[in-house]
C-alpha cells in the first residue's frame, strides 16, 4: 500500500456542464466524479453503496447516458454534460418520473432512488414507450433492497403515460 502522504491540494481542474450550468471545479486528482459531485460540488443527491460498480446507486447521466460516477475519473469528464438528481426537475416542477415515484411508493428508503430515476430518464429519452421487459432490463444495474422493484416498474410506466400525454399535439 502506498505510504506517501495523500495529495490534498485540489490540483486538478475541469469544466463541465452540470445540470445545464457551466461549472468549473478544482479537485484532488485521484477523485472520481462521485467524490467531486458530493465533496467538491455539494451535490449530495448522488449516492454510493459500494464505489466498485456493483450496486448502481451512483448512476448519473454523462452526455445523456447512464454511467456509474464511482468508476469515472473526474478528469475524464472535462467538457462533458452531467445530469444528477438535482437537475432532473425543471422550473420548480418535478419530472413526471419523480412525481410517479413519489405517488406510487416507488421510493421507500430512497437511497437507490436518484440512480434509478436518472437511469429511467435515459430510458424514456431513448425509448418513450418501453415494454415492462425493457424497463426491467434498463434498471437491471440498479439494486434496490426495499421495494422488490415492482412499484418502481409501475412508476416508470405511469411516468411514460404522463410524458406521452404532454407530448400529444394540442396538449
Amino acid at each position, binding site marked *: *500500500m*502506498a*505510504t*506517501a*502522504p*495523500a495529495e*490534498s491540494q485540489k490540483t486538478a481542474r475541469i469544466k463541465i456542464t452540470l445540470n445545464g450550468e457551466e461549472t468549473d471545479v478544482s479537485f*484532488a486528482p*485521484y477523485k472520481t466524479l462521485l467524490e467531486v459531485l*458530493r465533496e467538491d460540488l*455539494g451535490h*449530495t*443527491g*448522488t*449516492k*454510493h*453503496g*459500494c*464505489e*466498485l460498480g*456493483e*450496486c448502481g*446507486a451512483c448512476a448519473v447521466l454523462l452526455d445523456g447516458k447512464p454511467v456509474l460516477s464511482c468508476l469515472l475519473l473526474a478528469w475524464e469528464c472535462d467538457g462533458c454534460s452531467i445530469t*444528477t*438528481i*438535482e437537475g*432532473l*426537475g425543471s422550473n420548480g416542477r418535478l419530472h413526471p*418520473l*419523480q412525481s410517479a*415515484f*413519489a*405517488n*406510487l*411508493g416507488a*421510493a*421507500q*428508503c*430512497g*437511497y*437507490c*432512488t*436518484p440512480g434509478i430515476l436518472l437511469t429511467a430518464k435515459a430510458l424514456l429519452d431513448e425509448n418513450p414507450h418501453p415494454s415492462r421487459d425493457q424497463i*426491467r*432490463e434498463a*434498471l*437491471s*444495474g*440498479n*439494486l*434496490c*433492497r*426495499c*421495494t*422488490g*422493484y*415492482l*412499484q*418502481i*416498474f409501475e412508476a416508470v410506466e405511469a411516468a411514460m403515460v404522463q410524458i406521452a400525454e404532454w407530448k400529444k399535439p394540442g396538449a
Partner: protein
Amino acid sequence: MPNPTESPAVEVVELQLETDRLRVIGVPRRRVDARAKVTGQTRYADDIFLPRMAYCKLLRSPHPHARIQKIDSSRALAHPGVYLVLTGKDLPIEYGIIPVSQDEQALCLDHVRHVGDPVAAVVAREELTALEALDLIDVEYEILTTVSDPEEALATPEPRIHDYGEEGNIHKRVNLEFGNVDEGFAEADEIFEDFFFYQGNTHLPIEQHASVAIKDPEGKLTIWSSTQTPHYLHRALAKVLEMSPAHIRVIATPNGGGFGGKSDPFNHEIVVAKAALMLDRPVKIGLTREEVFYCHRGRHPVLMRFKTGVKKDGTITGMHLQTLIDGGAYGSYGVASTFYTGALQTTSYHVPRYHFQACRAFTNKPPCGPKRGHGTVQPRFGQEIQLDKIAEKLKLDPAELRLRIAEAPNAVTANFLELGTVGLRECIRRVVKISSWNEKFRKLPEGRGVGLACSAYLTGAGLPIYWNAMPHSGVQLKLDRGGGITIFCGATEIGQGSDDVLAAIVAEVLGVTTFDIRIYTGDTDLGPVDLGSYSSRVTLMAGNAAMQAAERAKAMLTEAVGARLDVPKERLRFADQRVFDSAAPEKGVTFHEAVCLAEARFGTVGTVGSYTPPRSPAQFKGGGVGPSPTYSYSAAVVEVTVNPVTGWINVPKIWIAHDIGRALNPALARGQVEGSVYMGLGEALMEEQEFRRLPKRLSHALVHKFPSILEYKSPTSLDMPEIVVELVEEPDPHGPFGAKEVGQGPLLPIMPAVANAVYDAVGVRVDEVPITPEKIVKALAEKKAGRAPRFGPTYFPDVDWPEPLRVPPPWEGGDGRAVNEVRRSSSQRKEKVLRT
C-alpha cells in the same frame, strides 16, 4: 352516535357516513417524505459535510482470534495530515445492546474475535490519508485457536471467545417445556422428525453505515448516524463516554435501508463521538461495503431438529424443537434471537404441548443479530416444510391441513402468548383462490411446481431491551396559531414509512392532510423516546402514542369550538381542515380558527401521547421474548420451474395474502409486502453470508468468503417475479385504526414456500437455504440412487441441556409461571451486566 332531532333519520345516516368516512387512513397516498427522496434532498448521514470536518478510518483485525500484545501507533501519528489515533485503551468500557451481553469494546483492548474487529482508529484531514495511515500502525498479535462454527464451538471450550456465557464457547442455552410432549407423541398417529439448516445472510442496505459527530458550540456531543435505534445508541454513548445522557444528542438520519442491520450501537459511532470530543472538530466515518459485512448482525445460521406428533386429521399433539445457533463473535441481540428461534411456533397452529431447546454458540465471525423476521425465520422454514411433509403423509392438501389446525383468534398459546385477531385462515383461503392452487398443486407437469407456506409475526416486542416501567413510545404534538401541527417523536425513519404513519394518524384524527403536518423524528433532543425501528413496533406503538396525543388535542379543540359555535361536543366533526357540526356541516370553523380558539381558551396547545404494551401472562424466565400486543399473519404460494438436469430454478410468480389489520397507507403497505417477498426470495435462492476457513495446516484464517455487494447475491430487477398481493383487513383492536405490522411478516413464508414448490416440481426436498441448483442436483442424484430424495442436515449434535423450565400450558391449569425452580445450568455461568 349523536341523535339529531330535526332531520329525517335516513338522511342523517348518509350524512354521518360521509362525515365519518376516513379521509387519510386507507387511502393510497404519496408518503410525507417522498418529495425529499425523489429530489435527492433527503439527507442521509454520509451527506453531512461540515466545516473543518475530519475523516475517520478503522484499523481492523486481520486475524479471526488473537490477543493483542502491543500496538504502536507512533508512525501513523507522525504521518502528515493525521490528527489523532485512538486505540482500545481510549475507550475501554464495554457496551452492547442487551443488558446481559455487555461484551463489545469500541476498539478491542486486548482480544480480537473476528476478522474485521476494530483495533485502532485514525482521524485525518482526508479519508485517503486516514486509510494510508492505517498501514503505519504496528500491531503484534498472539494467535489463538479459530472457532469456525457451533459444532466446533461445542467441541472447543478453550480458548474462550468470551469469559462470560454458559460455559466454554456456549453463549446461551434455553430449555422450556410447556406440557409433556412425550404424552403428546404417545397420542399421535404419526410422528415426524426432520432436520433443517438455515444459512446465515445479511441485510445489505444500499446505504453503508455512516456517522458524523461534533462537539457542539456549548461543548456537548451531537452525533448524526444511520441508526434504527437512536435511544439505545444514546444510552451506549453515555455509558462508554461516561457522560450524562443529557449532554448527548443523537440524531438518527433517515436510513438508506436498515432491515435490522442498524439496530445495535456500533463501534464506529462511539469512536467518532470520542474523536470529535477530543479534537473539537466534526469527525465523519463512512463504512465501506466490506466493513458493513463486518458489522453484520444479520440472520443467524441455525441448525434445527423438529419432532412433531399429529393425529390422522392433522391435529398436532406435541412438538419438540431444538435449535443450534451460530452467534458469531459477540452477544448483540443474541439472547433474544435464541428465544425467538422457538417463541412463535405456537402462534399460527394449535400446539397443545411444546418443548423448546436452543443453544447459541460464539464463533470467530462477525456477530449475528436481528434481521427482518428476527430469529423466527429459521424455525418457520423448518415448521412449514415439515407441515408439507405431514400433509403428504396424511394425504391432505397442505392448505386444507393448515386451515384445520390454524389457531383461533384471541387464543392464549401453550407458551402464554396472547393472540389478537388471527387472519390466518382468511389469508390461506385468499391465496389459494388467487393462485388457482387447487388446479396446480400436484397437477403441473414435471419441472414445474407450486408450494404453500404461512407465517405469523409480532407487531412490536412486548418488552423493551432493558427493563423499565416507562412507555415504549411517546409523541408530543404542538399546534400553532397558524394552524400548523408539529409531531415530535423518537421514531426512526428507515424507509418503512414511519414518519408517514405518524402524520397519517394525526391528520386523520384532526381532519387535516399530512401536508399540514411537520414531523421531527429520530432526534433524542427534540422528541420523546421511541425505542426504535425494530420488531415491527412503530405503527402500533408510536401510532397509538400519536393517536392519543391527537385525540387529546382534538378534545381541546372540540371544547373550544363547541363553546364558540354552541354545538354539543359529540356532534363536532374534524374533516377537510374544518371543525363543524355533523348535523349541519356548513356550520363550523376552519382548523386554523379552531386552534386559535383553543389557544385562547387553554393557552399554548400542546399534547402528549404514549404507549405501553399490555402486560403478558408469560411470567416464566424467558417469557419476555415473544409477547406482542397482536400478531400479523401471512400465507404465500410460490410457483417454480426446475430444470431436472441442471437443477436451475426460476420463480415466475408469487401470490401472497397478508393479515395487516388495516392498511394505513395501502401503497406503502403493498410496498412492504413486496419488499419482504423480495428479501425472502433472495434468502430462499441465493443470499448467503459464507465464510472461508483456509487449510488448517497452512493458516488460521477464517474470512468472509466475499464481502462485496457483487458476490453477496441480491436479486436484480431481472430476477424478480410477478407478485400478487392481497391485504386481509380485519381491524385489530390493539392497533391504531386496527393496524397490525407489515414490514417483516410477509418475508417468512417465502423460503419454505419455495422449498415446498421445488418438491412439487421435481420430487426432492432441499431442507436448507439457500435452495441452489447444486443442492437440487445432489438431491435428484439421491432420488435416482433410491435413497431419501433430499438435501439437508441429517443429525443434531449432542448438547448438554440444562434442566427444563416446566411451564404448564393454560389448558393444564398453568398461570404463566414455571413450576420448577430456576437452577443455574452451570457454575461458570456469568452474565455481562450493565454497569451504569
